[in-house]
């Protein structure tokens, strides 16, 4: 009788089981495959994050609404009552851009500190560490979805129809944003282990980043002409969030050319690109963001080797 038939079922199953390797360098492909195989942990962490955040609060997830609603109200008052930017129906324009910005902001600002905050877990339990950063991106996506639902209700109340023909841009644009946020979050969470003030620095950078993104002002009207004069239009789109914001504004706000409520002049507030052009740019951004995510994974892999002596 050969050895295999003598062995019990457990041993036979074992002999067929795949071999896992723990070593200093793990290939990128294996890292990504490993990450994918642990996706269930990611969902688990996303929902436990959300549950923990609102466990002891009476209003629960509505708190995640209150802060964006407040921001919306403040910017609306400032830019349509005091510093009139002349954009008609400004609240829709603002809301469309703000949901995008909020997701990016929430993801990156919460993910940056997460490896340090969960040091106890990182040092005791084995799992792909970047899942912690990704779980914050996941939670940000959940809040994003809730805010989009509120935006839709808002539009229904205002009887403001979106640009139906452009609607299919949203999933592409959203995925690009999610991939870019994930890439940045993964890198930042690892860098923060080595430079602890990255957590504070990122807050400052994100504030600056907000004003570089056309959420409360219109890109075409305020900056594009100046850049175009020097042939530097492309410069503005180095900020990946801009394209996503502009796409969301194009879909929800609809009209690229309006009459200013202040001077009555014609304002060109959004790019007048066709659907095909928008799609092309968004697909390009999605591709670049996915590449950025893979690069982020590689960087994280290099940095995580020394986590335990830094935490």
């Amino acid at each position, binding site marked *: 009788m050969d050895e295999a038939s003598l*062995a*019990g079922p*457990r*041993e036979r*199953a*074992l*002999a067929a*089981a*795949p*071999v*896992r*390797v*723990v*070593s*200093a360098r*793990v290939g990128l492909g294996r890292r990504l495959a490993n990450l994918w195989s*642990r996706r*269930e*942990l990611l969902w*688990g*962490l996303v929902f*436990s994050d959300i*549950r*923990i955040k609102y*466990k*002891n609060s009476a209003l629960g997830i509505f708190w995640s609404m209150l802060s964006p609603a407040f921001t919306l109200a403040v910017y609306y008052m400032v830019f349509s009552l005091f510093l009139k930017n002349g954009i008609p129906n400004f609240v829709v324009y603002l809301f469309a851009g703000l949901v995008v910005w909020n997701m990016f902001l929430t993801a990156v600002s919460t993910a940056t500190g997460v490896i340090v905050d969960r040091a*106890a*877990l990182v*040092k*005791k*339990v*084995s*799992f792909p560490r970047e899942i912690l950063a990704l779980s914050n991106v996941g939670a940000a996506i959940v809040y994003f979805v809730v805010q989009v639902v509120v935006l839709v209700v808002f539009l229904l109340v205002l009887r403001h129809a979106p640009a139906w023909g452009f609607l299919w841009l949203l999933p592409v644009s959203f995925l690009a944003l999610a991939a870019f946020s994930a890439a940045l979050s993964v890198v930042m969470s690892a860098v923060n282990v*080595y*430079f*602890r*003030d*990255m957590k504070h*620095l990122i807050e400052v950078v994100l504030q600056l980043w907000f004003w570089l993104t056309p959420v409360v002002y219109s890109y075409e009207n305020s900056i594009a002409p100046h850049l175009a004069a020097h042939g530097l239009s492309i410069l503005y789109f180095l900020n990946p969030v801009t394209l996503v914001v502009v796409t969301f504004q194009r879909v929800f706000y609809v009209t690229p050319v309006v009459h200013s409520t202040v001077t009555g002049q014609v304002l060109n507030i959004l790019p007048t690109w066709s659907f095909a052009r928008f799609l092309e740019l968004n697909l390009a951004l999605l591709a670049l963001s996915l590449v950025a995510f893979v690069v982020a994974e590689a960087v994280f892999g290099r940095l*995580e*080797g*020394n986590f*335990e*002596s*830094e935490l």
Partner: protein
Amino acid sequence: MTTVIEVRGVTKQFKIHHERHQSLKERLLHPRSGSTELFNALREVSFDVGAGETVGIVGHNGSGKSTLLKCICGVLKPTAGQIRLRGSLAALLELGAGFQPELSGRDNVYLYGAMLGLSRRTVDAVFDEIVEFSEIAPFIDTQVKFYSSGMYVRLAFAVAVNVDPDILVVDEVLAVGDERFQAKCVDRIQHFQREGRTILLVTHNADQVRALCDRAIVLDGGDLVADGPTHESLRVFRERLLDDAAEHDPEKLLGTIQIESVTTPSGSFEVRSGAGAHLEVTVSSQGAFSGNFVVEVFTRAGLLVSRSDAQGAPVNLVPGVNRVAVDLPTLPLLDGVYDVNLGVVDALGHTVVAWREGAASLQVIYDGREGGIVALGAAVTQL
């Protein structure tokens, strides 16, 4: 036999920061801060573990045994070398480290399960067993932060052992919980052994290793110094402990006293069960010393039959060669070979100054047909 754990040339270096420069300003001011030191927690460690083996990893504090275990679990990445694992692995390292205090026990079972790599459906299937094993059914929907530390550990242990691991890694956890729970843990581990699972047990409790393991690996200062049958490895472990103690021995007593040889008056080490054994021990000493003898008797399977320490009158050793009689007045044991370990400790029993593992082997002869260790001579008669 299938190899389930293959450790190949694993080295783990830690950077020790004497001054931590963790803020950006400090990093910029001291770009290559010189105050880090490399420390080798493991050096070129290699061994294989086959399916169904129970292997003990022993070593004193700082020997690298926990580092090795963490590398095997994937919590740490080796600096060089690699570890290949086959089959699923559950680790009982610092039980409950993965728990979220704000969540209920139920949610934590699922979350912890996911961390161990289990799908929700798999946890569903064993959820009731987990709750039953942990004995906290009434509190399963209470937030974990309200649990007592015992409940916390029980729940974590219950999850880890109910997830059907092929490899179970246990690190000192048997030292926690009350006695009854410890017994339950040991029972569970023995159950796992019978099921042919592979177990790695890290501890500095030699008795536990003797009781559970067929094989032991000894680590000392990051080096693998022994890998073999439990009793042989444990001999190395004890010798290393003595060597180590010698370095930190304030009175420089160690090494000055040696247990040279053990004989019997008749020259034979055969003993009839129930009779006694008289051992004559030759001890050389460089100085005068007053201390006690420790006598241990083990079965060949490594089970401790008896340990008597610091009992009876102290022995006064004089410089030169001393002869000491060790009397075992009665050995009511079953047929077999028993190993005797001898040691000399100081009067307070704190410091071992000499140790001889396997000082003598006694062949006990017994005609009865009982099973176990002790010859009780149970007799049954009709009344």
